[in-house]
């Protein structure tokens, strides 16, 4: 008789939600996804409060503007209704309901409509420009990452040689000059003083008149128009990769497993790639994700300078025209794309480093 309750409730199988959730929380992939969701939520909330609650908020400004432009023909209620539909916020509802419905429409990727081109949804505006920014930023970043890592590895292996000094110094110089200043200087010297490059022909994301598609002439044209932004992202990011890779390699070289590998008589080439290179590159993967956010932000100025039709340029146009739904939409969608990039980096990182992939891996 006494054995029955024990058999009915075996200790090990008992489902303890707290323990289970705790284990999930410790799992790095679950953590990464949770972090990504939280980040997007926080950004949307900040945006909502900026748009809705600040004194002289865009919504109030729009209502005033509507009343004034109609010389009083529109009543306050009507103006508020128009603003409501433009922002996709029900202004007559209590604040917490406004916030909830704002979040609800966000989940459905409905971020309101543009003030200026009426009827166009913000989502479609952004989707038209986002690929160009992702393409130019992605290409520039990837190129700088690959070349930078190769140069950093080279510099670390030739430590304190002339080559190392040249590479490291050049790396720290190009990484500390702001990218928009490099862009202006390129125009100044190559375009205006020496007249080597015709920058006006490179404006836009592709030449007008060309039909977008996957044929050689169009692909070539895309690269021609993106050449300057890509060059800038490449030049201004490469220094960071050189310096980080150099110092990561130097500290990896001091590790015991390298000495052990040497003692086991492995070839230098194998030690360099499989032992030192692989371990030194790992932390840089996370850094890669962080710099995606940095460059996407910096792209606003670069795109403005080269008149490249990406998200940044569209954002600045919206800022100038006070097209708040578009501003809000771009802030949200760039954050989401950056967060997704970070998430991808986290997943790749846990694949590359088997220690991280297991639950309860190194924290922080």
């Amino acid at each position, binding site marked *: 008789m006494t054995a029955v309750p024990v058999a009915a409730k075996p200790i090990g199988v008992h489902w303890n939600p707290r323990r289970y959730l705790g284990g999930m929380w410790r799992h790095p992939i679950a953590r990464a996804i949770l*972090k990504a969701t*939280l*980040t997007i939520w*926080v*950004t949307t909330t*900040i*945006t909502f409060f*900026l*748009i809705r609650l*600040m004194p002289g*908020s*865009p919504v109030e400004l729009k209502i005033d503007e509507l009343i004034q432009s109609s010389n009083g023909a529109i009543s306050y209620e009507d103006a508020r209704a128009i603003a409501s539909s433009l922002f996709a916020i029900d202004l007559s509802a209590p604040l917490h309901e406004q916030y909830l419905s704002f979040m609800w429409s966000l989940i459905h990727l409905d971020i309101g409509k543009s003030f200026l081109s009426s009827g166009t949804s913000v989502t479609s505006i952004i989707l038209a420009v986002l690929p160009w920014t992702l393409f130019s930023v992605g290409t520039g970043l990837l190129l700088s990452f690959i070349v930078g890592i190769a140069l950093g590895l080279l510099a670390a292996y030739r*430590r*304190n040689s002339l080559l190392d000094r040249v590479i490291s*110094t050049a790396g*720290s*110089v190009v*990484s*500390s*000059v*702001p990218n*928009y*200043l490099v862009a*202006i*200087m390129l*125009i*100044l010297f190559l*375009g*205006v*003083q020496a007249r080597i490059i015709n920058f006006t022909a490179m404006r836009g994301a592709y030449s007008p008149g060309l039909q977008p598609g996957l044929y050689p002439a169009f692909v070539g044209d895309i690269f021609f128009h993106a050449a300057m932004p890509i060059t800038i992202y490449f030049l201004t990011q490469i220094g960071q990769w050189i310096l980080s890779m150099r*110092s990561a390699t*130097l*500290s990896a070289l001091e590790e015991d497993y390298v000495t052990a590998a040497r003692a086991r008589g492995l070839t230098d080439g194998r030690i360099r790639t499989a032992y030192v290179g692989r371990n030194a590159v790992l932390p840089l993967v996370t850094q890669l994700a*962080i710099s995606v*956010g*940095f460059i*996407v*932000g*910096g792209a*606003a*100025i670069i795109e*403005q300078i080269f008149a490249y039709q990406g998200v*940044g340029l569209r*954002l*600045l146009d919206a*800022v100038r025209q*006070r097209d*708040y739904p578009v*501003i*809000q939409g*771009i*802030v949200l969608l*760039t*954050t989401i794309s*950056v*967060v997704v990039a*970070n998430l991808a980096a986290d997943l790749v990182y846990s694949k590359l480093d088997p220690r991280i992939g297991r639950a309860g891996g190194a924290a*922080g």
Partner: protein
Amino acid sequence: MTSAILAAPTLGQRLSGPWFATVEFLRLLSRRPVGLVGFFGIVFFLLLAFVAPIFVPFQNDPSLVDIYLTPSLAHPLGTDFQGKDVLNQIVYGGRDILTVAIIAALLSTLIAITFGSIAAVIGGRLDTAVVAVTDITLTIPKLILLIAIAAILRPTSFVFLAVILALLQWSSLLRQVRAQVLSLKERDYVEAARSLDLGLFHIVFREILPTMRSYIVIHFILSMTEAMYAQVGIILLGLVPISGSNWGIMLYFAQGQGALFYRDSLWYILSPILAISLVQLSLASFASALEDIFNPRLRGS
């Protein structure tokens, strides 16, 4: 404090008198020519921005006959689109930019140190919360958010701008401070202070943070460069109401007036670019020399 002797001595602790420390520091710095140049660069630009305006008379009268002059004896860097002397604007244009950078760096360092070290020492839920907030701020594309904030709030004062910048850029430093404190708090001298029940404030600010001095200084400098980058960026985009004149505003006007495409105005547009770039370069190379000096593991060879 006997416990300090037990800890791995940093440069500042090994030397008693502040003068001796300064001499030792300069001696180490003089072995790193790039860092030395950076140090003198910083001193030069601080003097240029804060002391030189006292001695150089301010010239603000537009002169329509002197537009876009090439460099000459009267105007060593030429003139701008209104015929104003460019060198004079460079002398007067550094103060605001550097002040904003310094205030932003001070505030963000303060936020990072306070919350980073307290989170690390207390641990538990507070730590989890601080780490979560930090991770989130770290991923948000800052310049995009800054552009949106600047467009909506329209910062009119430079102090306000500095506060916004500081609120956007404390996260990376906080993460590193926390990691450092986490390893430092296991040291014997911190353990000793804890067993003496000296209190959280004492442990954080008197025991742990002093050993991180050099580290904090380096990050203060780096966060100045970050603040300069963002600040000049949004000035260049015309998102800050234009008042007075600084290097960023010079560049904004030079671009807006089409001076970029006018061949004779090379020095007009190049001067603010060089000023900003050289400040950034000086700060970066000085910071990397400091890292070299204070990190004994890298020193050696």
